[in-house]
Structures are given as C-alpha cells and as structure tokens.
C-alpha cells in the first residue's frame, strides 16, 4: 500500500477513535464539513481560536476562584461561555466538564469548582494534543498528494 493510502487510513482510524472516546462529537463533523476550498484550514483556525479562548477563560476563572470571596456569578459566566464555545466546535469532553462545573458554581462550591477547573485544563491539553496529531496527519496526506477525507 502506498504512503498516501496508509496515511489516509491512519487518519480515518485516528478520527474514529477520537469520536469513540468522546473527545469530539458530531458537531466536530459539522465543523469539518465547513472546510472547503475557500477556507482550507478552517477547522484548524477555529480550533486554535477555541484553545486560545479556553486558556483565557481558565486563567480568568482561576483568578476569580483564588479570591477570598469568590464571585461565583463571574465564574459561572465564564463557564457558560466555555460551554458554548466547546459545544460549538464539538469538544464534547470539555463541554461535559462545563456542565458539572456549572452546577458547582450554582452551589457555590469552591472546591468543586477548582476540581472542575483542573479537569478542564486536563481535557484541554489532551484535546489539543489529539487535534495537533490530526492536523499533522492531514498535512502529511495533502503533502503526499491526497486530499483530506471528511468524516461521514
């Protein structure tokens, strides 16, 4: 089998595993569908934006949670935004953490919030690494002369 086919197969498998493990969900598929000739790096762009945003939000939340008196409303609002953006790009795991995070905010549970924040960080790092691998694979495929197959 030539390199291209191998790469393509690798990509397909990798992507399938991401879905299987819940890193990404159907919304990610939608995202991929949006990539076209006019915006060949669309997925990467949006995902990068998301990661930047995520980091900012996490930092803000950490700051707020460090205060003596925690403004849970603020934390909640950040979580809300993170939930929105993560669900929009299909980052399922992060979104799920956000859902739990929200309940802790509403309960004004600082410990719970801090735990969730850590989890968000963790998931963020994992997803980032996974998607980097994905993009690398895709680049290799394109370099080898192939085109990136869209999932489903």
């Amino acid at each position, binding site marked *: 089998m030539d390199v291209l086919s191998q790469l393509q197969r690798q990509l397909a498998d990798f992507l399938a595993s991401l879905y299987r493990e819940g890193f990404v969900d159907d919304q990610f598929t939608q995202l991929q569908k949006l990539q076209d000739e006019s*915006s060949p790096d669309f997925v990467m762009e949006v995902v990068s934006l998301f990661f930047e945003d995520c980091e900012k939000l996490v930092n803000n939340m950490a700051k707020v949670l460090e205060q003596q008196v925690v403004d849970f409303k603020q934390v909640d609002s950040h979580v809300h935004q993170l939930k929105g953006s993560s669900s929009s790009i299909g980052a399922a795991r992060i979104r799920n953490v956000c859902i739990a995070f929200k309940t802790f905010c509403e309960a004004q549970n600082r410990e719970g919030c801090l735990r969730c924040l850590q989890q968000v960080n963790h998931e963020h790092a994992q997803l980032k690494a996974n998607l980097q691998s994905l993009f690398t694979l895709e680049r290799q495929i394109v370099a080898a002369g192939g085109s990136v197959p869209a999932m489903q």
Partner: protein
Amino acid sequence: MAAMQRVASSLGTSASTYGSCKGTGVKVSDQFPAGLRVLVVDDDITCLRLLEKMLRRCLYHVTTCSQATAALKLLRERKGCFDVVLSDVHMPDMDGFKLLELLGLEMDLPVIMMSADGRTSAVMRGIIHGACDYLIKPIREEELKNIWQHVIRKKWHDSKEQEHSGSFEDNDWHKQGNDDAEIASSVHEGAEGVLKDQKKRSIAKEEDDAELENDDPSASKKPRVVWSVELHQQFVSAVNHLGIDKAVPKRILELMNVPGLTRENVASHLQKFRLYLKRLSGVAQQGGISNTFCGPLDSNVKLNPLGRYDIQVLAASSQIPPQTLAALHAELFGHPAGSMVTTVDQPALLQASMQGPKCIPVEPGMAFGQRLVKCQTNMSKRFPQNVVSAEEVAPGFVAWPSNSVGTVGPGSNLGGMSSQNSNMLMDLLQQQSQQQQSQQLSSLPEPSRVINVQPSCLVVPSQTSATFQAGNSPASVNQNYSRSPMIDYSLLSPQSNNSSLNIGQVSNGDLKTTGVSGYSGLGSISPLSSCSVNPDNSSQQVQSSTMTIRAARQLPGLGPDISNFQVSYGAKSSEVLDQGPLRNLGFVGKCTSIPGRLAVDEFESTMSNLEHEKFYMEMNGNKVKQEPYVEFTDNTRVGIPILSQLPPTSSDLMSVFTE
C-alpha cells in the same frame, strides 16, 4: 461540489444581490434568501467565526461583531443595511436582551437570540423580550438556513401595517367596533394575526384610504422612520396630551413637531403602539407571562420612557376601562408619588378611564400618566374582548375598559420600563392574548361594573373612590368583593422599603395579588399590584419594579370577562402590577399604594410565589395557564399578585395558593 461552493461563496459575499442599504419594504432579490444581510453579535470569537462560516455557506452576507455596543453603533449608523441580527444572550458589555429590545424599538429589526443555555425559562425570556427565534448552541447550519423566514415575516407584517396605517388614522376612534374586533383578533393571533386584522381594518376603513392614498400611495415603500426612544417619548407625550381617543396622527404630528416626520409615520406607529397595548393586555390575560418576562431590567426603576408610553399605548389602543387605568395608575403610582420612581405624569390615564360611565375617575395623582386615560371611554365600547389593553399595559398603566377583560398594570412604568420590558411585554402579551382571546371573548364585561381600586386596599368592586387612600389597610378591601372576581395583582416590590408589593393571598374574598395571572372571572380585576397594600407603605417605591401585568382570563364563573393581564417586566426591583379587569375595580385616585384590591400581605418574593401564580392560574376555571412571569431579583420583594377570587371560585383559587 467544489464549483458550487465557489459560486456560492461568491454570491454570499456580494452585497449587491440584496438590494441597497435603503432597506425599505420587502426587498427580495432573485436569489433570495441568498444575500440576506446578517449581523452576528457574539463575544465568543470561536462561535463568531463558526457562525460566519456557516452563514456564508447559506449564501448570506455576513458581518460579525464581537461587542454588543459596537454592533448597536453599527446598526444605528447603517440603518437599513441589515436584514436580521443574530445575537448571543450573554455578553459582557451589554445583555443580549437589552440589545434585542433596543433593536426592536429603534429599528424594528428581527433579532434571533442564541445561547448555550437551553432551558425553557431562558428561551421563554428570549421570546418575551421579542426575539424572533431562539437558537441553542451548538448551532447547526440547517438552523441558520431558515432564518430568512423571520425576516420576511417581519417585513411582511410591517409593510402591511404601514399600508393600512393611513386609513386607520382618522377613523380609529370611531370605528370602535371594528377596532375591537381587530384588536381582539390581533391580540389573539399575535403577530401572525396582525395581517388579518389589518385587512379587516382596511376594509372597515375603506373610505379613509382614498384620503390617505394621496399622501403616500405606497406607505410600505417609504423610508422607515426609526422610532428612537426620544422620538417615541415625544410621541407618547403627544398621545397623552391629546388623550387616547383623540390621538389622531395629524394632531400627534402637530404636537410632536418633528421635522421630516409625516403623518403616515405617526399613523403607523400609532397603530403599532395600540397593537402593542392590546398585546399587553392580551398577554396579561393569558397569564402566560413567565417570570422570565420580568426579565432583567437593567434600568433602575425609573420610569422608562417606554414604559410610559406603553401605558399610554395601552390606554390608547386598548380599551382600558377608566377604572382600570385609574386603578393601574393608582397601583403603580399609588404609592406616594415620591416613591414612585416612575415619571408618570399626572394620571391622565386615570382621567381617561373615568370617562366611561363606569369608570372611576382617576386622579391625577397617578403618575402614570394621562396617557391611558382617554382611551378608556372608547375602549369600553369597543372592547368586546378583553384584549388588548393588556398588552399595552406593560409599560404603563393599562386601563381596562370596563368591558375589557384585560387589566392593565401600570407597573411597567414603575419599574422603569425599559424597552426590554416593552418588548417582552408585547411578546408576552401576544402570547397571552392568543390564549386569552379565546377565553375572554366569551363575555363582555358589563360596563356598569366598576370597581374602584383603592390604593393600598383591596379592591372591592363596590368601592368607588376616586382617591386612593394610602392608609387603607390592605386587608380592608378584599373583604367585599361583591362581585369582584379574582383579582390578580402581581406585585413586585422591588423597593427595599418594604413597599411591598401587595402580595397578598386572597382568600375567599380576599384579594390576593399573585402573580397576576389572569384571573378572570366575573369581572375579575386584577388589582394593580404594584402598590403595596400595606398601609404603611403606601408609597410604592418602585425602584426597578417589574410590572406585571397580567391579563386575567375570565373565569367562566366570574362576571364579565375581565382579563387581567399582567405584564411583568424583569427589573431589578420590579414591581409587579397586576391589573385585573378594572371594570369592577376602578382604580381611582392617587394611589400611593396599590389599590386596595390587592391583598395587602406583603411577603418576600420568592420563587414559590411565582409558583403560586402558576397554580393560581391553573386553578381558575379557565385553566389559564399563566406562568409566573415575575422575576424577582434578590432585593425585591415580589409581590405575588393577589388573586382576588370570586367567591364561587375562591375555593379553587385558594387551594392553589396554599403554599
């Protein structure tokens, strides 16, 4: 596929396909909906980028904005350059709902809300605030493909309104019969019904068409006037000054003295205003206003110009019985003028309402303003259905014609009706009215039933006092309900000083103000609750009060159908005024506190109160499904609208309220 995409994207990005920025009337390009000009507002850059891409793929022309304030500025500068706005709800610089209301008010653009929050309450809030649609994130491309329908629908309705506005102007007041029908149906059907109503109206007023045609043969093609808050305020003042029944576009125009404004502009705006009022009353009736309706009122309690105008509108457009108006005023402003934050003028409103035979003269004390006053006389006649007034009430004082079922709650003014409120009120009313319409139409309230609502006292149908006595003990009123149907008062008393909303539980014969929800029934009148019934707190301090105007549905068993509609605005400290059908109540005089009808128990607002309302509604014979729309803020005391229950149904009602 690639070729198609290329073509598509080029189409999408070219603005030329969709007409110019003049934007009047319904412009549909050949490739419609391609080229639809969309403005997306979201502070989340990721989502913004995503939406932009998806919208472009739908062949729309997209502009993005990550800040609400920038978006507003952009829209103001380039009016007519956008067809639809997509806005997120949670934004740091401005609440999405606020933007929504401002847009609806200033430029009548369809706005679609988006949020990751998909709870029913949140969605309800969006609708109440006037959103054309509410999308839940993550948003899919398919959902975006359909947004063009909102544009068309809105433009269609607007252009229809404009077309008929002229014919409407001079004969409005005289064609009450028609108006009533129209109002009723419009309330009934909400926006969708407007078309039908307008058609009826146009038929009824054929003779006027000729006159108007000369002025502007194609009203719908005229450049749209943007009714800014200031302009609207002027409009409202003019209407108030003239009195709702005499407020014809020509006179209004003269009074406003705004260069460049034409009579047609005024006429169409007047028409909308009246519809709005109707909707408010209708909504109140339906009691469907959920607490989200109260929405977040950013502004403090100051009376927002809109609020005032709403009341006026209500008064004008709806047939608010003088008493009701008075009562509303009383309630709203009943509390000592000082406390009333609202800037309502002397209750012309009340006066107006008084005109009817059954009306109870309203004393000028009502801050609420004259606006509403006049309408009553006319209203009563043509208020076959409870409609309408409820709608308008929201912001202001809604006076229900004696016949009308709707109750107007002046509340809105109290709480600084913000544009948000009005929007939501309108929407809410529409919703409610639809529901209510069916129910209320049943019987026309007898004009003769006049219920005077005394401030700070329960409204007792038999009482007719033009002045409110602040000192009345709240409880006093309710005892006598000879005929008073349930009165719902939803009072939200934001004020700290326990101004309390008259939240009282009305036990048999007592007036309870509960979230106003429609209590309808025999002349059920929902007392305007915003007044605190307590004798102590005669003044209503409406700080950011939420006015709840609920249209009460008439309970079958209750007397003439009086619909109370409560419109509640979310406000920080909102007072909820619940004005039930004033027919029997007769709000009168200056009320420093809410007319007696309302049960005076004050109690802290809690969500449970809202629940009460819900229950209350449901228990009525009408099964009015009204959700508590009162939103209580932390510091507000929310008065639960007091439902005055008619004896026959009191048991039902009471049971509901037992907490």
